[in-house]
């Protein structure tokens, strides 16, 4: 069995999952929460890697697509009483549908125009919640997937359960994306990214390839959004701000935008930054002003350093065909 075959990847995913879930029983609640955060951010960042790194399109509005997914999941769960795994899938599907519509426009736009359009989306979509009563306004809507089923074990903390759900989702997404990228779709996207004209001459429908990439990327972001809603226990406009969109892009840049595996590293860095800055200030005894502004400073410095010293992304172990 080759290591790169879909089946091999499936077993590798299961092995990684088993190890992670075993670890989850050995760490405290805070680490479980952070673990779940990492898994969710990794999914969200991988959606940007798929879009930017593989199809050459840019989006500053993935936070908004997460909001679409999150709100959809919460609405179907509360109004249709559907079980939450289905709510998550619908969150992804609605995110994908929104991405499809956006993708049709996006395929005709490039560079700064595409960035501007998606930026407008990031600003506009969350504030829609204030226009429609069903979306709960500024206060948002609560979302509760409940505790772990009893057969899994007693004393299973809420955050540990979130960690399990998020990790299973993340591994599934990775397995799917990894396989997809080694099919002809993946090759087409890379061709489009490298040189759209050459790709068109080679018989690739560039527009179609771009729309497909946008749709898939948005579906993944939508799923990440519904998992994010699970973690926060609510959806609210303030939870899907422009800052979230920029945070994801920062994660993708730190990860190296064309490296799927790197998105895990990006997610770990994003979650670790507040932790690191917290321990720095507690050692140095800084004021509250320093404490609250240090995470932003660290993120910015890392971002600038990455762009200056490793413009193609840090050299995480990469695959040859990338």
């Amino acid at each position, binding site marked *: 069995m080759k290591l790169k075959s879909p089946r091999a990847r499936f077993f590798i995913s299961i092995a990684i999952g088993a190890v992670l879930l075993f670890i989850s029983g050995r760490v*405290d*609640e*805070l680490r479980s*929460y952070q673990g779940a955060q990492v898994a969710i951010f990794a999914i969200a960042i991988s959606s940007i890697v798929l879009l930017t790194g593989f199809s050459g399109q840019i989006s500053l509005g993935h936070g908004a697509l997460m909001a679409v997914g999150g709100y959809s999941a919460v609405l179907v769960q509360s109004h249709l009483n559907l079980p939450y795994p289905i709510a998550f899938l619908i969150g992804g599907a609605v995110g994908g549908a929104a991405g499809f519509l956006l993708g049709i426009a996006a395929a005709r736009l490039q560079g700064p125009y595409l960035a501007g359009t998606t930026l407008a989306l990031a600003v506009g979509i969350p*504030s829609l919640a*204030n226009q429609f009563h069903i979306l709960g*306004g*500024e*206060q*948002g809507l*609560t979302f*509760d997937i409940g505790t772990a089923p009893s057969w899994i074990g007693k004393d299973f903390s*809420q955050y540990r359960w979130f960690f399990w759900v998020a990790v299973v989702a993340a591994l599934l997404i990775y397995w799917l994306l990894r396989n997809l990228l080694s099919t002809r779709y993946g090759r087409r996207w890379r061709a489009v990214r490298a040189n759209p004209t050459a790709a068109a001459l080679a018989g690739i429908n560039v527009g179609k390839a771009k729309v497909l990439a946008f749709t898939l990327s948005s579906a993944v972001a939508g799923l990440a959004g519904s998992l994010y809603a699970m973690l*926060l*226990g*609510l959806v*609210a*406009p*303030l*939870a899907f*701000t422009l*800052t*979230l969109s920029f945070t994801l892009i920062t994660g993708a840049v730190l990860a190296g935008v064309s490296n799927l595996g790197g998105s895990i590293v990006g997610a770990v860095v994003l979650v670790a930054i*507040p932790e690191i800055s*917290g321990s720095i200030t507690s050692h140095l005894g800084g004021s*509250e*002003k320093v*404490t*609250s*502004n240090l995470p932003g400073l660290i993120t910015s410095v890392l971002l600038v350093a990455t762009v200056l010293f490793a413009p193609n992304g840090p050299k995480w172990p990469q695959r040859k065909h990338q």
Partner: protein
Amino acid sequence: MLVQRRTKGGIFAAALTAVATLVASALPAHAETGVSSSTIKLGITVPLTGAAAPGYNKIPAAMKAYFDYVNANGGVNGRKIQLVVKDDAYSPAQTLSVTNDLILKDKVFALVGTLGTANNEATTRLVNSHGVPRLFVNTGFSGFADMKKYPTTFPLFPSYATEAKAMGKYIADNLAGHKVALIYQDDDFGADALKGFATAGTSFVAKIPYSALSQADPSVVGKWVTSIVSAQADTVIMFGVTSATGALAGGLYKAGLIGKVQMILGSVGSDGTTLKGLLGPLAPALAGSIAASFLPSPSDATDEYVNLFKTVNTQYNPGATFDNNVLVGMNTAMLTVQALRAAGTSPTRASLVKAIEAKGSTWASAAFSPILFCAKSHVGYTGYWFGKLGLDGNAVSVDGPGKYTLYTTDSGSAPVVKTAAARPAMPAKGLPNN
């Protein structure tokens, strides 16, 4: 040989650690989380950065100052109070994240004065599952008094519904016939207010909702002014945070409407000093605005609580201007100290909640309103007085300095009652002796 000895030493150390850990974990838990023999650790989340920060970012320092004052005078049953402060930038996601840190990493005994309606809502699941007492939350959302949904949460401030009802009564008594417009933050904060005004029977020529933090956008403020002008309103109620009041005053000034439109400010958005900081030379534009408050005016030199808090502020919080936010912080801290004292010499989270329910209504506090805490209710203050902002930004009671008429009611359908203000006398030196 040396290597072997080291290994042996290592094994010995490891074994010792393991035994020590086992013994430690087998010992009965003596102390409650966050309580040691010499300290009690509390936590607070507030916006220290971002659009909602001005004003509120002064509250934690004021609380710390009062705790330091109590600590310097023996603490609570010999324990010193520590306050861990976390910035949430008014974002519920951030609030949950830092509250995780407070409860799971810093292991605080209780949360106190956590700010924001959606922010407190986001951490409710965590707070409830760990049974963490959440004292005197800094929001007037009446829902937090629901003891089934929030068994360990104690709102202190009168609810926004109470405030709106009191304001409605004040308008009916003093400003009958005026054309009133209402600007409100479009969340539970504003919804609560709308409910109160509806009960009071106040009618509006315009109702203008805005989403939280959008007051930083000049075009939003432009829309408010346009709506006020097109509805021909001569009175406008601002039911929002302080930065929104500042934005409104700036907008009215630019439109040349100062003096033509009477502003009525909710207690959340009427701190004079913060407004002065936000508005700079425009600050006098606010003079004459009517403001609702439950605490005494920070400029009232005849008030014993105000005078004590001022002294504490000078000594333990040097450089901070004494204003409503400092007053709120110190008053919250004073009630917290009484709650901790009442929780007993070995306080637990459960004993703290019980103590507030059993004795909270008798405690000393600067507000003129009675406190209603009991085993059946987690409602704190219930009343407001009305004042006019002077040129210094501080409110002076409409009945004259030092005289306060209280408008008392509930969040439901009870009528608004006007009474003369009364409250427990301050304990000697402002140090609780309950």
